[in-house]
């Protein structure tokens, strides 16, 4: 028994060592830098001034709080809309012959596609010089492509939201299709025979059945879009700026002292995401206890 346990511990040690070193080592070193500890430039003192600076200083406070607001808005809107599109898409095609083919197509094509490529695609399609603007101008809906509404590089982050919807709806779709197919149609048929109309079957049967998976996927998507850099960097504006872009700009600043602010921002993003994950686990555990 003891030998078996030792064997398990020994086999798990190498991968755990790598994970702990890279993940927690990175976080710990980043946290130290956020506290001002940068031996490379002769800074050894530890304090929270970088955190104070980004959140409350006259220079950065407005940037930080509007950035945080934009981050929350973009992450919430893109997660919610991607989930809604995926849910209705999955419900519309799940009974069709093509459902499996489309599912496989999305899985093989959209999921491995880098976010950067999707962001470029959004520019090509939705910007004022993009495909839709030219098309709308050609068919006379608008006078010139310049009259097309600003959907990319706009202050509300619409382009970023579009990119995330494009990319994450596929992720939601795959999860929902697998849940819906494993559930089958019996619950809905039963509800129908008990007198539930189409809307009631959606509200009282489908939604509660898919909600746990939808919620788990939403947490993952929200956390990802909250902390991702490349799409906001490509499709965002200079002000307001999302927090990961701000953090990276601090980090690229030729003034090495600004690295502490960059790291402080990164740690704040990480903390917010962790709070979300902890909240999710707490909810899940509470539900298990309740059941």
């Amino acid at each position, binding site marked *: 028994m003891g030998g078996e346990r030792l064997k398990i511990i020994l086999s798990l040690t190498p991968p755990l060592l790598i994970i702990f070193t890279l993940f927690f080592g990175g976080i710990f070193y980043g946290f130290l830098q956020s506290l001002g500890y940068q031996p490379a430039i002769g800074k050894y003192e530890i304090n929270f001034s970088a955190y104070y600076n980004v959140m409350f200083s006259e220079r950065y406070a407005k940037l930080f709080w509007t950035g945080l607001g934009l981050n929350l808005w973009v992450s919430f809107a893109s997660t919610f809309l991607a989930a809604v599109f995926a849910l209705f898409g999955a419900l519309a095609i799940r009974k069709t012959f093509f459902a499996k083919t489309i599912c496989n197509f999305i899985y093989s094509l959209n999921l491995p596609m880098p976010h950067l490529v999707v962001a470029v695609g959004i520019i090509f399609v939705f910007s004022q010089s993009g495909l839709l603007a030219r098309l709308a101008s050609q068919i006379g809906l608008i006078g010139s492509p310049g009259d097309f509404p600003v959907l990319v590089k706009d202050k509300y982050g619409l382009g970023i939201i579009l990119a995330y919807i494009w990319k994450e709806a596929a992720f939601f779709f795959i999860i929902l299709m697998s849940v819906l197919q494993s559930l089958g149609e019996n619950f809905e048929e*039963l509800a129908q025979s008990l007198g*539930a109309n189409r809307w009631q079957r959606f509200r*009282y049967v489908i939604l*509660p059945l898919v909600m746990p998976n939808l919620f788990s996927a939403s947490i993952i998507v929200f956390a990802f879009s909250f902390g991702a850099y490349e799409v906001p960097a490509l499709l965002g504006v200079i002000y307001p700026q999302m927090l990961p872009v701000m953090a990276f700009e601090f980090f690229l600043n030729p003034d090495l002292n600004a690295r502490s602010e960059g790291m402080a921002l990164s740690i704040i993003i990480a903390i917010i995401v962790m709070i979300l994950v902890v909240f999710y686990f707490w909810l899940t555990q509470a539900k298990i206890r309740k059941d």
Partner: protein
Amino acid sequence: MSKLNIKNLIKSFPSMDRPAVNNVNLDIQSGELVAFLGPSGCGKTTILKMITGLFQPDNGDIILDEQSLLKTPTEKRGVVMVFQNYLLFPYMNVNENVGFALKMKGVDKNIIEEKVKEMLELVKLPDIGLRKPKQLSGGQQQRVALARALISNPRILLLDEPLSNLDAHLRDEMRDLIVTIQQKLKVTTIFVTHDQEEAVLLADKIALIFDGELQNFTSPKNYYEKPKNTKAAKFFGGVNFINAKKINNDLVTDIGTVNYKGENYIDLNEDNIITIRPENIKLSKNNDFKDNSFKGLIKSVIFSGTHTRYKVIVKSLELECSLQSVGLQDINEDDDIYVHLPSDKIWAMNE
């Protein structure tokens, strides 16, 4: 209480080379408890789903109280189905599950509460309203599913294999409960089963279905005593089949001429098959019988507790006979024996 007529019902699926349901006709009277009996895949559940409206028939009609149901959507038919695996909504407690149909109808909360209580008492589970489905045993889940189906006072209640997921003890209990509730509420009920014993114990009438075709629709007793054809007879444990030709007023069989008193005599064709249940055959070492007595040889004797089964060879034909073990004559293998087929227990069939 509702009367259901099924007329020339046909349903095919692209994946099947024959219709899943082929020209089925049934008249089910108000308050009857009917079993759809047949092997797996014979089309029983397909008929049930057409009655609920979950499947549309290719042809034929389903008439409930003189009105066709075909254009009525499932949710408005008043036909409620209890599925084989109960399908209690896992995120609702028992009260919410049972009250579901009334909630869908927009019934007042207080009335729902009262009705839920009443239904849970009816299925003898008055104190489990706040439990979640996974906290219930299989038998309890089945009862809750039944209460949920009955709460809306359905015109027709459909039960898909209601006892198949229960162990032997719970089956007996649930069977009694279904009969009691059905008799109390007088709701026209159809249940699907592949178990002939279950069908016989529960149903007023049995619709026997093979390969999508209705073989017979009659009382359980008739399946034993007056089956329509050899398929039906075999499904109900018939083992003795003898070819018989109708000549003048006699049935001439492979073992001799048989005196036949069945009321279907005039309907018989020239070529027929007669059957008799093993428990209706009599044996005697002396020829004690007036008619239908044939000399044979005991091939085997199998004691099975209350009964003893004999295989007897009569003119190269093997007949099976089952006699009560108590007070039995001393009959052994290779004994010469007289086999008596009482004329009122023989049944002749065209196919």
